[in-house]
C-alpha cells in the first residue's frame, strides 16, 4: 500500500530530496466500508476520527472470524477452539508490543482503552507510591481521562495535583512545566497529542525533565498513537496508554505499555480470574506480567481486532500517514483561515489534523447539526477538556479531525457547509 512516486498534488512545488512517500488514499478509502454510505443524501465527510476512527474491513473481518470460528475462552483451555483463540490473542499482543516499540511482549497489558490504562497506573502505581505532600504534574490541555484518575488518587493519598500551563497557541509551555516540577513531583502524566487542539507535545523532552526529578512519566496516547505511531523507547517514557477505537480498531479495547522494571513490581489493583498463580482462602499469589493486570476474561475479539488494526497501519507506514496528514493540515488550516469570522483554537506549530474553531454568530452545536445535514460529521462541545475550554474562555468549540482516509474533498465539503451555516445565521 505504501508507494513512492513524485508528488501529484496541485501544489506539487514541495520538492524534497528524499523520495516522497504517499498514501494511496482512494485505495485506503475503499478499505473502509463505512465511507461508502451517504448521509442525508450527501457524500459522507467523516471528520470525527479524534472521537472514533472508522474501521477497515480487515479489522472487522478479524473480529468476525474470532466470534465465528473460535469464540471460546482463552488460556487453560485444552480444547482446539480455546487453543486457537489463545494463540490469536497472544499473537495480537505481540503485534501491539511491536507497534509500540516495546522490546518485550509481557509488559503490554490489554485494557478497555486509554482511560482504563491511566486508571490502572493511577491506582496500581500512584496509590502505592504517593503520599501526602507528593505531587502529580499534568498539563492544562489534558482530557478528563488524564485528570480525574489523578484527582481521585490524590484525594486518597493526600498528594497534590499540579497543572503545567499552556500557551495561547495551545502548546505546552515547557518552561512553565519545568517550573512546576519539584522534588515532590512523583508522577508526570501528559497527552502525546491534545485531542482538542491537535498539539503534539515534546514527550522526549518532558520525559527527560521528569526523570531528572525522579518522577515516573505516564502518557495518554489516545491521540498520539493513531497520528504519530508509538516508539516507547525513543520517547523514553514509563507508561503509554492507548485505545483501539482511535487506532482504526474495535471499541472497548486498548493497550497499556509499562517500563518492565516498574510494571513488574506493581501489585494488581483488580482481582479475579486469570490474574492469579494460586488461590486459597488464606492467601493468593499473583501471576506475573501481563496476566496480573488482566483480571477476568479479556476482550478477546477486541484484542485480535486491535492486532489487525496495527497490522493495517504498519503496512501503510507512519511516514506515509504523516506526509498525507501534513499536507491536509496545511490545506485545511488555509481553507479555514479564509472563512471570515472563524477563530481557530489551537495553532501550535507542531500539530496533527485536529481543527478546533469557533464561528462568529454560529454556536458549535448549531453548526454540528447543520454540517451533519450536509454529510459532514464533526464534533461540537468541550471534548472532555473543560479546564482547557476555560483556559481559552470558550464554553465549547467545533472540532473537525482527520484520519488516514481524509481527503481535500472532506475539507472542501466542510468549508462549503460552514459557509451555508453562516448564511443561515447571518
Amino acid at each position, binding site marked *: 500500500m505504501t508507494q513512492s512516486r513524485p508528488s501529484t498534488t496541485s501544489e506539487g512545488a514541495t520538492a524534497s530530496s528524499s523520495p516522497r512517500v504517499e498514501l494511496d488514499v482512494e485505495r485506503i478509502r475503499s478499505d473502509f466500508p463505512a465511507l461508502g454510505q451517504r448521509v442525508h443524501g450527501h457524500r459522507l465527510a467523516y471528520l470525527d476520527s479524534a472521537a472514533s476512527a472508522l474501521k477497515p474491513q480487515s479489522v472487522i473481518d478479524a473480529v468476525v472470524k474470532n466470534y465465528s470460528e473460535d469464540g471460546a475462552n482463552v488460556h487453560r483451555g485444552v480444547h482446539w477452539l480455546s487453543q486457537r483463540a489463545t494463540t490469536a490473542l497472544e499473537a495480537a499482543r505481540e503485534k501491539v508490543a511491536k507497534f509500540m516499540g516495546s522490546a518485550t511482549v509481557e509488559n503490554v497489558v490489554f485494557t478497555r482503552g486509554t482511560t482504563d490504562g491511566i486508571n490502572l497506573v493511577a491506582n496500581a502505581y500512584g496509590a502505592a507510591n504517593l503520599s501526602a505532600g507528593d505531587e502529580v504534574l499534568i498539563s492544562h490541555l489534558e482530557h478528563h481521562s488524564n485528570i480525574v484518575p489523578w484527582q481521585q488518587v490524590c484525594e486518597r493519598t493526600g498528594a497534590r495535583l499540579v497543572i503545567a500551563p499552556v500557551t495561547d497557541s495551545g502548546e505546552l509551555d515547557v518552561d512553565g512545566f519545568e517550573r512546576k516540577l519539584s522534588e515532590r513531583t512523583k508522577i508526570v502524566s501528559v497527552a502525546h497529542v491534545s485531542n482538542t487542539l491537535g498539539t503534539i507535545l515534546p514527550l522526549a523532552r518532558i520525559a527527560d525533565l521528569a526523570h531528572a526529578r525522579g518522577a515516573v512519566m505516564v502518557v495518554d496516547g489516545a491521540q498520539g498513537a493513531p497520528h504519530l505511531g508509538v516508539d516507547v523507547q525513543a520517547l523514553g517514557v514509563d507508561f503509554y496508554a492507548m485505545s483501539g477505537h482511535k487506532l482504526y480498531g474495535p471499541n472497548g479495547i486498548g493497550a497499556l505499555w509499562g517500563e518492565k522494571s516498574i510494571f513488574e513490581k506493581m501489585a494488581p489493583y483488580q482481582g479475579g480470574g486469570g490474574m492469579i498463580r494460586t488461590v486459597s482462602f488464606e492467601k493468593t499469589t499473583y501471576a506475573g506480567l501481563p496476566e496480573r493486570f488482566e483480571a477476568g476474561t479479556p476482550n478477546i475479539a477486541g484484542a485480535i481486532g486491535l492486532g489487525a488494526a496495527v497490522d493495517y497501519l504498519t503496512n501503510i507506514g507512519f511516514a506515509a500517514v504523516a506526509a498525507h496528514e501534513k499536507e491536509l493540515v496545511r490545506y485545511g488550516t488555509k481553507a479555514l483561515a479564509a472563512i471570515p469570522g472563524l477563530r481557530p483554537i489551537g495553532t501550535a506549530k507542531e500539530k496533527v489534523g485536529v481543527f478546533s474553531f469557533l464561528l462568529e454568530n*454560529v*454556536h*458549535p*452545536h448549531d453548526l454540528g447539526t447543520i454540517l451533519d445535514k450536509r454529510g459532514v460529521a464533526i464534533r*461540537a462541545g468541550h471534548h472532555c477538556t473543560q479546564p482547557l*475550554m476555560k483556559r481559552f474562555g470558550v*464554553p*465549547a468549540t467545533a472540532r473537525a479531525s482527520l484520519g488516514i482516509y481524509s481527503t481535500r474533498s472532506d475539507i472542501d465539503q466542510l468549508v462549503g457547509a460552514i459557509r451555508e451555516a453562516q448564511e443561515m445565521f447571518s
Partner: protein
Amino acid sequence: MDDLRELYQEVILDHGKNPRNFAFPDASNCEADGYNPLCGDQLTVKARVEGDVVLDVGFQGQGCAISTAAASTMTEWAKGKTRSQIDEMFELFHSVVTGKKDADEDELGKLAVFGGVAEYPMRVKCATLAWHTLEAALAGKKEASTE
C-alpha cells in the same frame, strides 16, 4: 436549505440572535441555574413570583440558537402564567420536542416552532434546558440539569 429550515425556523433564528428577556427582572424572588453537561450550555433563570403567578421572568447565559430561542420564547410566554399553567405547557412542549405529539399552533402558539426539534433527538436537551431551569426555580431548587 429547506430541510434545515424545519429546525431553524425564522422565529428560532430571530430569538436565538436577539433573545427577549435577556436580563434579570427587578426584584426577582426565585432563580435557578440550568446546566447541560453534554455541551456545557449554561443559563440562569430568575423570576418574580407573587402567589402562584409569574409576574416577570428573564434569563442570562450562553447556549446554542435552539436553547437560547427556547429560553427567550419561554420567558415571553410565561409572564402572567400560573405555576400549573407552566407545568402543563412544559409537559406539552416536552411531548412535542420528543416527537410524542405533533406541534399544534392552537395549543402552543409561538412555541410550536420547536416542533422541528423532534427530528433531532440530540437537540431535545437544548430545547428543554430553560424549561427545566424555570421549573427548578419555581420549585425552590437551585439547579437544574438536563442529565
